[in-house]
């Protein structure tokens, strides 16, 4: 093992001497000793080969050390984030409850509960975001499905909150339109998400979402009297026309791409 130990010593001349680097060096020596035993057990009898193999597995000890330090920092940061989340949640809950009581005793217009509901909504949105983000990092799922669900959930929660405020604070009769409006917002945001995250099938989403959103918008506008039921339906064929334009544009772009590919004669020259 002399060759490996010399190699480690030589590599550590390029790493500043600290407690952490010393600990890492000791760990590394243990690791390579274990590895040497493992290789012997696996049937490699030539010590020189074992040493060369181990050295080839640790060709850049400095980078290994940097990577370990980086990982430790990241783990520490994660711990801090968890602690911050817990503390932040407690503080947020306290502030919400205090605000609720202050409003209850000072204003007392029967709407203080909205503060509690809004607080709960805000926490739900935040923790959905945290949970989805964690799940998404673990496994790449087509269309970042968890992110999209989180986005839809958050939007619907926001619109539900708006519904409560409009209904109880301002007593607006058509407050319920916030729910279909929320659905339209979900479709729009999902389409935009697909576009900006360069999803391969984004175009199919636009094609589906545009007429759907148009139909819901037609109902909303007709209910609140902005457009008449008789004329408003034109929104739907208009949406289909937009779809047709999108298809045409995509076909033109696709054709152009294909031509570019065919013109690439470098490959054919091979």
């Amino acid at each position, binding site marked *: 093992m002399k060759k490996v130990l010399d190699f480690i010593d030589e590599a550590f001349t390029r790493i500043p001497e600290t407690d952490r680097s010393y600990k890492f060096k000791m760990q590394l020596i243990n690791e390579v000793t274990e590895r040497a035993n493992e290789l012997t057990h696996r*049937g490699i009898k*030539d010590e*020189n080969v074992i040493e060369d*193999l181990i050295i080839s597995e640790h060709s850049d000890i400095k980078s290994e050390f940097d990577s370990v330090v980086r990982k430790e920092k990241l783990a520490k940061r994660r711990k801090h984030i968890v602690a911050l989340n817990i503390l932040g949640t407690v503080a947020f809950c306290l502030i919400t409850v205090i605000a609720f009581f202050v409003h209850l005793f000072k204003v007392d217009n029967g709407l203080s509960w909205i503060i509690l509901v809004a607080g709960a909504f805000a926490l739900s949105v935040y923790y959905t975001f945290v949970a989805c983000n964690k799940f998404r990092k673990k496994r*790449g799922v087509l269309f970042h499905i968890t992110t999209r669900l989180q986005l839809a959930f958050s939007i619907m929660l926001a619109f539900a909150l708006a519904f409560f405020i409009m209904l109880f604070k301002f007593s607006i009769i058509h407050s319920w339109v916030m729910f279909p409006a929320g659905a339209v917002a979900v479709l729009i945001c999902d389409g935009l998400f697909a576009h900006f995250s360069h999803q391969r099938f984004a175009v199919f989403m636009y094609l589906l979402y545009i007429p759907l959103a148009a139909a819901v918008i037609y109902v909303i506008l007709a209910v609140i009297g902005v457009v008449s039921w008789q004329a408003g339906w034109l929104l739907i064929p208009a949406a289909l026309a937009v779809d047709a334009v999108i298809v045409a544009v995509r076909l033109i772009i696709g054709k152009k791409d294909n031509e570019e*590919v065919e013109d*690439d004669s470098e*490959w*054919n020259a091979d």
Partner: protein
Amino acid sequence: MERRLKAELWDKMHYLFRDYNDRMVHVELHYDFDLNVDAFKTVLACFFEKAPVFHSSFTDNHISPYWVVKDYNIDEVVEVNDVDEEDLEHKINAFLCQCLPPEGDLQMKVLILRHSGKTTVCIIENHMCMDGGDFKSFLKTFCKNYNDYVENGVSPLDLRTGSRSYKSVYKDFSKADSKAAQNLYKNLSVKDKYDRRFPFKESSDEDYSFIARRKISAEKFPMIKAAGKKRGATINDMLTAAYFYSLYELAGFNPSEPATISCAIDLRRHMKDVSDTGYTNQTSWMQCRIPELGRDIFETLQYVVRSSNMFKQDKFMGLYGLPLLSLGYRIMPHAASEEIIKIGYSNPLLAMSNIGVLEVDKLALEGHEPTEGFMSGAVKYKPFVLLSATSMRNEMTLSMCVRGSDEDKQTVNRFFDLMEKNIDLLIADEMKTE
């Protein structure tokens, strides 16, 4: 903690092929000297350390399968036996016809047979780990490392390592081509309505795995090449034409009806440099279709040349359907994607794999070139067949690995007789000139 390796697309696909074949790739090499077994084991152990997939166990997780790296001892991988000449063939066949389960701890096994101062090396490996193309490269690297180790004491560590992903195939394309290739969702694995099958008997309990082989003498190889050149055909085209012609004759297909043979193509043709990739599978199929048998074998050859040229003109040859497979495996849990892919995938009933030349100079150990040898694909389950072709010192070996009965073995041998006869027809002019 157990070490896991990602199961790549082709690993999963070859696992899916368990319904069609035993997934083993076989190689047999004969040397006229006693090789250094200890050195052989040392080199192989180093290669196993560099490419841990060879000592891993495949876990068929229903959501996402993976490999688990396992402990091993090189003596479990390499078996060494001293045998008499008369036992040699039996020992070789018994070893080559075994199947290594992917759930087992080892994905490669070697048998070294020492007999009268000579050595025969037989290797089997799981096709899920690498295909014939990479296996050939693995063997050449092995021999180089063995020689450097035995002759100069250089540690045998010079093995390619890197990504095993199917996506490596796109890495040397231009940006536009890469984008276009990754959008080839067309499924080319379409079921042939004529359902042409090799004339095997029905499966029975008495079926066993066997490797039938036939050698085509070295004198004929340059003639095949020359005859092909005259007609604008490659050796592969010549063999395919003989394959078609023999099959029509053997199975009694209607000569006026079409037939299709799938020829394996190495997707590494799209890669300029594979030195940064790991050992893996990069093989696809090219469907060679003839509209009818043709009046004579030369017309059949014309049809074959026309069909294969059509494929070769396509710069994305063999890349169709890969994005679709990848999508299938990504969007669904593995158990579901397997079922869906099985519906869309049609395993070729008749296939051919021209593994190519086994270069003796690169397979030489301690200055001794192999005297003979061959490589072949997996043992296919009826009704599927794969004809493998390799050549060494111009001597071509045709082989067919089948799980069948003695009658099936006779059928395969009759097929080889016809192949020989038809190859002779193809090179008749060259033979006359000689």
